Each structure stands twice: as structure tokens, then as C-alpha cells.
């Protein structure tokens, strides 16, 4: 693939806020979706002649459906609090990658067409007509945002640029300018059941192979069940776990946990994907359709619990949205939700994160681990953005930070956090989230990883850290690809259950 050459930023001792350099990333344009990909999702195949009217109409439609969008477009005072918070700004220094400037790409149009001030005095309030140039800016810069929500932590009004990026992308898709990467994947998941487009037989083959590998390695017949009716747990995991390295090591870890705890479990060929790329634009309907496959599989298989594997955006959608979209959860009193709730075991949170499950099993002594098996490792933990700022684990606020760390510390002896301001709610995105994990955005991805690479470099120097654990398929894929460009070894990257897998005692 022809990717323009670019300089890899230099890692400094601290994360520095650069002076802005106008337009330095304007050339970054993700590949647009082809006609069949677009039409498959019900979007126009190419930029329509009446794109401008369609865009304004769609914006009006979204403004009526999403309070977030309406309030966020009104409330910003241009205080500047967010300007140094985005990893893409820190890595690229393009001012349109400052969250407020990214929002303003839409806000200027909102003001022009939807507010009295912008209709009467456009220049005064920075309102602009929706021209082709503005649309091109949207396409370029709404695909340089990973929807990681870091800016929303620091905004005095909680403005979440992700909401605006999602709306921008939805409008773009709606006028015929969708993104190839995300829209192609959504087509596959809606048709086949996973982002990679793996059919059932291929999955079954792979899982059999993995069972053989585990047995050869440990001498224990750990199973990788799929489509088993009446199993207690349905595991929904990102399809990358089936094939990619280091993802597959975590899948092996989950299987060992279920085996050791004696929990009957299954995966599903029909719902073989945890990631829901419908999150990446504001298309509720597409996101709902993708999530409904999981409900349908759960009903079909008759499972009592639904557990989600290591995947950041997936966990946000599962934890925060599944109950809304599909009735997987509690508290619904309509027939649609009751049908699902009747089947689920109320003794467990639904859905449950694999880290919650494993951590509980270790703490209660139901599975045994030997952390010294990981003594060759000095581990740090990368909080994935959508887990950190869009979800929770456990019963307490902040459980998404404490539970993974508790779990890591129970299976390794050497652990060091990266510095404050780069972890927890302040964590930096890997640089590849939110639909940017595609080779045509490699420059954006590499530069966007600079803040994380800087923080990692510091714990490597200070504590000889040689493994960065994480719980997200995108983070794993992104870091194995871009960290080597900063001089790190890709074997430093892996899932928490890769560590569990080594430490767990199987009988």
C-alpha cells in the first residue's frame, strides 16, 4: 500500500504541548467507501448532487435526536481548556486536531444554519456556509479523532468531541462520503457475524487448532466450545482474538479460566464479534442491528450469563448501551427486555467483563494462580480509552481502573503504573481507536501514539518495564504495529489474560 512518507516524532522526556502548525495534517484522508459498501448500509454510493441540503437536513435530524449534540454545539465558550488534551494534537500539532477546533468544524455550520446569530452575523460568530472545502475538512479531521473522550474529562461543560465526531461521520456517510474501513467492516458483521468476515466453519477449525495447541503445551484438554446450547456463559469477544497475535493468547487465557473454574461456556458463530463499529458514527440503527445479533444468539443458545472479552469500544457498547439497545441487563419492564431478563442469572452483572469474572474467581479462591511464572516480566497497564471513560467494572465508580490492576497484580509480581496524567481517566488513547485502525491512516496513528509512547518510555527507563498489558483488541493491534516505529519491541504488547494464561494452575 502506498503510504506517504512522514517523520516519526521523537520521544522526549515529557509529553510536550507543541506550537500549532496550520494544515500539517490536512492531507490525511482515509480511503472513502466504495459504492457497494455504502449501498450495503443504505447510504448513497457516492457524493450526491444535493449533498449540501442532505447534510443540513441530517444535521437537523441529529440535533432533534441527540441532546448531547445540541447542548455541546451551543455551550462551548472557547476557553481553551481542551486545546492541549488530544493525543492527535500533541502528536501532529495541527490546530484542527485540538478538540475545540474539531468541534468548530461542525459548530461553524450549525451556527450558520441553525442559530439566529450565525444567520445574521456569520463573520462575527465564526459561522460558515457548508462548502465543499468545509466538507473536505470534516472528512479529513473527523477521521483524525478516535472518539476517546479525553477532552470530555477536562471540559468545564463536559463537551464530548466524540459525540460531534460521530455526528459528523454519520452526516458524511449520509451524503455518500463514508469511510471504507468502518463501513466495510459493518457490512461484514451484519452479514456474517464478525468484523473479519470469518464464516462458522473457519472459526470451528481455528478453535480446534487452539485446543490442540493448549493440550500440547499444558497436557490439559482445555475446550474452546462454540454454538453449545445450554451452556452457562456466552463469551462475546473481538474476532481479532481468533486469529491475531497477541490477541489469541488472551483467548487461550479465557478458555483456561473457564476450564479451571468449571464453568460451562460457549462462543457463537452467529455473534462472533464483540466490537461494534456502529459506535463510531451516530447511526443508532446500525449499532443496534449489530448488537441484536448478540441478544439473538443468547436467546437461541439459552445461556444464563453473557461475558465480554478484552475489547475497549466493545465493552463501552456492552456495558453502557446493550441494555438500551438489546435489553441485555436489568431494570426493563417492557416485554422486549423481560424476555431476555427471564433467561439471565440475576446473581451476576449482565453483561460481565472477563476481568470482573476472572478477578472474582481468583479472589474467591475458585481458581489458583502462580504469579512467579510471570517473573520474567515487569508489567505496566495501559487503560484503554473507552473502558476508562465510557464504562465501568465492578460496583464502584472507577472499578474499571482498580479491577484490571488487581487482576494483574494477582498474576504478576512486578507491576508499575505509568505516570499520573497518562493513566486512569486521563489515559491516552493508543492512537488507533474509533475507526482509525487502518493502514491509510498510518501517519495519524503513529503520531497519535506519541503521548502513550512517551509515558511508556519513561517506565521502561525507570523500572525496566518490558510488558504493557491492555484489554482492547484495537490497542493490541495498534501498538504491535506502531510501537516498533518508536523503537519498542512488539512482544511488549499483550492482554491481561495472556498473563493470566501463564500464571493459572490447571488440573
Amino acid at each position, binding site marked *: 500500500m502506498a503510504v506517504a512518507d512522514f517523520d516519526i516524532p521523537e520521544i522526549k522526556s515529557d509529553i510536550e504541548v507543541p506550537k*500549532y502548525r496550520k494544515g500539517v495534517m490536512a492531507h490525511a484522508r482515509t480511503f472513502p467507501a466504495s459504492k457497494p459498501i455504502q449501498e450495503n448500509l443504505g447510504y448513497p454510493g457516492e457524493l450526491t448532487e444535493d449533498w449540501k441540503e442532505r447534510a443540513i437536513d441530517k444535521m437537523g435530524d441529529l*440535533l432533534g*435526536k*441527540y*441532546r*448531547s449534540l*445540541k*447542548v455541546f454545539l*451551543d*455551550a462551548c*465558550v*472557547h*476557553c*481553551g*481548556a481542551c*486545546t492541549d*488534551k488530544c493525543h492527535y494534537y500533541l502528536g501532529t500539532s495541527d*490546530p484542527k486536531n*485540538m478538540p*475545540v*477546533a474539531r468541534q*468548530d468544524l461542525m459548530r461553524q455550520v450549525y451556527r450558520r444554519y441553525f*442559530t439566529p*446569530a450565525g444567520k445574521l*452575523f456569520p463573520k*462575527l*460568530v*465564526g459561522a460558515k456556509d457548508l462548502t465543499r472545502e468545509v466538507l473536505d475538512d470534516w472528512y479529513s479531521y473527523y477521521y483524525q479523532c478516535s472518539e476517546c*473522550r479525553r477532552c470530555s*474529562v*477536562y471540559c*468545564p*461543560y463536559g*463537551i464530548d468531541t466524540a459525540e460531534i465526531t460521530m455526528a459528523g461521520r454519520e452526516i458524511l456517510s449520509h451524503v455518500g462520503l463514508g469511510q471504507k474501513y468502518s463501513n466495510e467492516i459493518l457490512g461484514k458483521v451484519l452479514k456474517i457475524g464478525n468484523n473479519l468476515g470469518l464464516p462458522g466453519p473457519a472459526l470451528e477449525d481455528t478453535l480446534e487448532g487452539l485446543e490442540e495447541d493448549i493440550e500440547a503445551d499444558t497436557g490439559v484438554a482445555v475446550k474452546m466450545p462454540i454454538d453449545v446450547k445450554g451452556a452457562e456463559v456466552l463469551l462475546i469477544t473481538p474476532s481479532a482474538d481468533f486469529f491475531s497475535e497477541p490477541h489469541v493468547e488472551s483467548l487461550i487465557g479465557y478458555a483456561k479460566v473457564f476450564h479451571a473454574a468449571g464453568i460451562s461456556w460457549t462462543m457463537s458463530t452467529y455473534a462472533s464479534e464483540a466490537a461494534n463499529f456502529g459506535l463510531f458514527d451516530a447511526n*443508532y440503527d446500525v449499532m443496534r442491528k449489530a448488537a*441484536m445479533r448478540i441478544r439473538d444468539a443468547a436467546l437461541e443458545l439459552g445461556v444464563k450469563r453473557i461475558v465480554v472479552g478484552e475489547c475497549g469500544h466493545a465493552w463501552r457498547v456492552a*456495558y*453502557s*448501551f446493550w*441494555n*438500551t439497545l438489546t*435489553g441485555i*441487563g*436489568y*431494570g*426493563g419492564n*417492557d416485554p*422486549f427486555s423481560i424476555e431476555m431478563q427471564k433467561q439471565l442469572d440475576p446473581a451476576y452483572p449482565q*453483561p460481565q467483563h472477563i476481568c470482573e469474572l476472572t478477578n472474582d474467581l481468583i479472589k474467591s479462591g475458585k481458581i489458583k494462580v502462580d504469579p512467579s511464572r510471570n517473573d520474567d516480566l515487569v508489567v505496566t497497564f495501559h487503560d484503554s480509552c473507552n473502558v*476508562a*471513560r*465510557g*464504562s*465501568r467494572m465492578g*460496583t*464502584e*465508580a472507577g472499578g*474499571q*481502573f482498580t479491577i484490571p490492576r488487581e487482576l494483574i497484580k494477582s498474576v504478576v509480581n512486578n507491576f508499575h503504573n505509568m505516570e499520573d496524567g497518562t493513566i486512569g*481517566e486521563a489515559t491516552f488513547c493508543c492512537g488507533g481507536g474509533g475507526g482509525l485502525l487502518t493502514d491509510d491512516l498510518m501517519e495519524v496513528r503513529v503520531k497519535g501514539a506519541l503521548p502513550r509512547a512517551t509515558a511508556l518510555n519513561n517506565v521502561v527507563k525507570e523500572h525496566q518495564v518490558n510488558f504493557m498489558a491492555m484489554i482492547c483488541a484495537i490497542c493490541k493491534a495498534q501498538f504491535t504495529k506502531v510501537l516498533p516505529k518508536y523503537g519498542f519491541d512488539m512482544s511488549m504488547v499483550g492482554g491481561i489474560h495472556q498473563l493470566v494464561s501463564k500464571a493459572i494452575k490447571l488440573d
Partner: protein
Amino acid sequence: MSTVTMIYAGMFYIATLLLAVGLIYKIFDYSRTPAPLVIPTTPAPTTRTGVAYRMAKEVVVFESLFKSNKWIWVFGFLFHFGLLLVLARHLRYFTQPVWFWVDIVQPFGKYASIIMVLGLAGLWARRFLVDRVRYISTPSDHLMLLLLIAIGVSGMLMTFVSHTDIIALKEFVLGLMYLDVQPLPQDGILMVHLALVALLMVIFPVSKLLHAPGLFFSPTRNQVDNPREHRHVAAWAARLDQNN
């Protein structure tokens, strides 16, 4: 009744009407627009009470801004806190007899105008001195600060330099409230001060000053983090369930 009085009285009736109608419409519009998904910025409170506490911290001490940038926080807080005391002090023109607590904060309000203007000056300086903030500033961002500073400075001039006839002013204000218009003291500084205030009232519901009501409607701040225990469905989204 002089023409000037008539103009000012008319101006304030119109400005008050536009402010009230504009704000009520905006608040109605925010509240009727659904928030279909649970999107609090986590970690977030898991109870309603917790959300009230989170929101109170945002409103009273600007918690998120404090995390973000100490300079903006200092200037922003000085301005808003100063403004609060100044507004409280102004209640003496609207109440007869003057509420007891207004009497108490009155002397503080006098000096609060100084910290209010200092805060505004600091915020404005950032628009020139910090390259990123300069980049995002629109003409209206500058003019808004200019307007607020002009209101503050004209008020301070009357407090500290050239006193206006506050007895007559109070009669004018109470007259407006009870629809019995009284003459406005013919004082240049006062007339500038009042005209700018009326302008600010008109601008409020069509400008970024909407951040004040907006904050209370911000889903990332006002939602409870309980999506596994509580099913959250917007009306337009609930209709989708019925098709299954």
C-alpha cells in the same frame, strides 16, 4: 417623562422579554431533546445523589476546569465569583426593603467588581498570549469580553469615581418592576452601563452564554452510571423494540 427615560424603559422591557423568552425556549428545547444513550464521562456517580454532588462541584468550583488548566480556572473563577457578588449587591435596586443578606454582602460586592474585571482581563490576555487560544478565538469571543469589561468598568466608575444618584436609580428600577415608570437619572456613565447590560441580556440566549443552562443538560455530567441495572430508552428508540 423625558424621551431618554422612555427609551431606557422600553429597552429594558424588550431586553427582559427577549432574555426570558429566549432562555425559556432554550431550556424547553434542551429538555425535550432526548438523550438516547447512557454517556456519562466515567468514572461517574452511580446514584442520583452522586450526580447532584458532581454537578454541584462543576457549578460551584468548576471541578473539570480545575483538572484541566489552572490559569483558566483562576481567571474564570475570579470572574464568575466576582460577578456573583456584584449581582447580589445589585439586588438592592430591586428590593424594598432591601433583603438582610443583600445588606451583608453589599460591601463585598463593591470590591468584587475589581476581581471580576481582573478575571476578565486575564481571560482576555490568554486570547492574545496563548497561541492555541488565539487560534480558536472568534471576533465574538473578544467582543463578549470587551462587553463584560465595559459593563464592569462603567459600574466601577460609578462606585469608586463619579457617584450616580442611586436613590433616583432605584426609583427608576422599582418603577420598571411595578409598571410605573419613573425618571432615569441623566448620567452619561449610568446610561452607558445600562445600555450595555440590556445588550448583554439580549445576547444571552443566542450566544455562548448558553453554557450556563447548557451545563445542567450536559449528558456526560448529569447522567447516572447505572446502565446494567437500569434500562435507559429514549422514546424514538423504544419504538424500535416494538418491531421485534
